[in-house]
């Protein structure tokens, strides 16, 4: 189901009756929001600070909060793909699992996921070059493959582990991975930073070691190391920085002889 209309920007201009009539696509059938959900109005909120609370399993509902610019969405349960796609402001909190393409192409605002997420966090739609431009995505659980694909700005923080190709084709911005990475981090990256605090099996050969840094600073937050700092992806004339924890990756110690 595609429900772009579940967004504070759209709800804000409407009363309950109009909200019930908003159109959503369920497969190839056009339905109204009221047919599918139980919608309740709680209380009047001044200004742009509208809060939409979704309770239940929304795993099959896509594009919630797409292009939103203000307000807040709180989801109690799991949520489907393309959550907060292209959003430029406001906040989304997921107390559960969020599916792939979380915050795809987002420009600003904040998304916090208490559970895990699927693949392509912050990544643009297939074929598009418009990666994440700004804002913040915080994931307390794990994330899948290709997080921050073609990212141009903003921050992604993952407290759990990620799969392959974190920050692929990244142009700018910061990705912090507190857990492990399955490999190929920073492939084809041209700039920006990826910090991996956990284990990574290997660094791709088109990265070259640059130095050992005691810690990394992310917008004032100090991440203590020490870290191996790699520069790459040289195959793409990249100058991206890949920080990898020294203590968690003793198998990368052989790089030290190239310093």
């Amino acid at each position: 189901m595609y429900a772009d209309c579940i967004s504070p920007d759209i709800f804000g201009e409407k009363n309950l009756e109009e909200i019930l009539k908003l159109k959503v696509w369920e497969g190839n059938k056009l339905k109204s929001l009221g047919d599918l959900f139980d919608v309740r109005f709680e209380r009047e909120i001044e200004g742009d600070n509208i809060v939409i609370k979704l309770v239940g399993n929304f795993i099959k509902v896509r594009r919630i909060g797409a292009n939103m610019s203000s307000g807040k969405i709180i989801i109690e349960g799991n949520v489907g793909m393309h959550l907060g796609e292209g959003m430029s402001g406001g906040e989304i909190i997921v107390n559960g699992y969020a599916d792939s393409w979380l915050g795809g192409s987002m420009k600003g605002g904040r998304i916090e996921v208490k559970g895990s997420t699927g693949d392509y966090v912050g990544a643009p739609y297939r074929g598009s070059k418009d990666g994440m431009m700004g804002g913040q995505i915080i994931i307390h659980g794990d994330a899948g493959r290709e997080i921050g694909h073609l990212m141009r700005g903003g921050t992604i923080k993952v407290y759990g582990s990620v799969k392959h190709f974190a920050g692929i084709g990244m142009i700018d911005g910061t990705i912090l991975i507190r857990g492990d990475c399955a490999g190929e981090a920073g492939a084809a990256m041209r700039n920006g930073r990826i910090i991996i605090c956990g284990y990574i099996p290997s660094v791709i050969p088109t990265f070259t070691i640059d130095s050992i840094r005691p810690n990394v600073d992310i917008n004032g937050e100090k991440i203590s190391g020490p870290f191996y700092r790699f520069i790459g992806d040289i195959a793409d004339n990249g100058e991206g920085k890949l920080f990898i924890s020294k203590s968690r990756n003793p198998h990368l110690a052989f790089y030290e002889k190239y310093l």
Partner: protein
Amino acid sequence: MSLLIKNGLVYDPLNNVNGEVMDISIEDGRIVEDVDEHKAKVIDASGMIVMPGGIDIHTHIAGSEVNSGRLLRPEDHVYDVEPKTAITRSGVGHSIPSTFTTGYRYARMGYTFLCNPSMPPLEARHTHEELEDTPIVDKVTYPLLGDWWFVLEFLKDGLVKECAEHVAWIIVATKGYAIKIVNPGGLEAWGFGRNVKDLDDPVPYFDITPREIIRGLCMVNKILNLPHTIHVHTNRLGQPGNYITTIKTMDCVKDLATSNRPVIHITHCQFSAFKGDSWANMRSGAEEIAKYVNSHSHVTLDMGQVIFTDTTTMTADGPWQFTLYELSGNKWVNHDVEVETSSGIVPFKYRRKSYVHATMWSIGLELALLIKDPWKIYLTTDHPNGGPFTSYPKIISWLMSERAREQTLKKINRRARARSLLPSIDREFTFYEIAIVTRAGQARALGLKNKGHLGVGADADIAIYNINPKKVDPSRDYRAVRRAFSRAAYTIKGGEIVAINGEIVKVLDGRTYWINFETSPQIGDTIKAPSDLKRKFREYWTVEFENYFIPERFLKVSAPIFVRAGV
């Protein structure tokens, strides 16, 4: 079925009808003197304008190139989705819509005849399959012959008559309509990793110049008596300073013209009208081109207007597409079609704030406005190269309203605005002139006898737009013009109402027109091929000679046009 359109304000330039209140009668898909009012279905068109169905002389809508573009661009499809209805099929695509959607969208705008301008002969089968799936509209397609090896060989040896016989064969074999020439010689040179620099730069190996190719094929076109002229995409397209090449190209066939009839069509001229010697000092060469066209009658043009949007460029001009890839750094496709031609695809975003893009936008409109005779320039965007065809109403409003142009001028790059000629031009098109640049002129250029006009005997392809020129001043209320032209009140195709207020109400199969030759019975399935044609096919092509020919039964609705050729 008979149909009567009552009290519409009729614009029919080919019959010199300029906004007169007239009734149009239709019987069995054709326009007739009158019909029995009691039996006919009556459309009340009072306060609306009635025009012949729109004709697009140059729009890439089918073939392997377009299809590769579709595959390349999922992001172009995702936000432009058309769900299926009881009678129409679903589809996607902003700049390269799927085939069915292309047909519906054109019909909604009142267009009923499309010309697919670049078909590598090898891909003819694919092209016709896609044209078949483009509903409602009639269509033709032009095979690319400017870099076809046999043509180059014949012309190198000066064998124009033999070349004409061969071209006749290839047109019948591919069910084509006109001779399309793209960057003559340049595409062959691209096979060697090069491009031709000018009209007199010889092609590697063949040692023939673009000038000789254009002149040769222009003579072939005359010998074959084809209804359309040669359809030329000039050398050095998209390079600053190319307006000189364009003028030279037009001038090189001047002596072949007889009785003031055009002999050459320069397509998407905007891309060939750049002055300057680098992107930094690129300027408009529209004034010079307009000056040439105003004083010569052997040439027609189409605009190739640029729209500020995200689109997909696709041409057979491989070297130019490579340049475009280097400029944009975007994903791309480049392909060499065996011995025939090349092609390339690059997604592209035209930005208001870019000096070059804004200048290109200005050049297209300058050309249309500075060329005094609307019969010489037609409205196109070179869909999808300059922008999708769905933006035609926008262009119509720019042409009809100085104010609309000012509105856009305000938003473009400041340097481009300062250099644009548009503020100095106060010409505003009338509805009559719009009818010329969107249908009548194109019908004349294409040599279509039954299209583009509303005289008795013409095909009943009609567009009715809900705008009253007596009440609306298009110069001030250009938004109303835009609205009216984007959703035709009625589109009638072959005497059947296919769209009402922009909604498709009936889906028909359009016809595929192609050229057949009545003088030579050998031309056709049993052509007397030049002795070594089959051998060369075996040596150079992946397709056997016997499988190359597209039989007439392959076309869903075949509509051959017979011409009497001089060979």
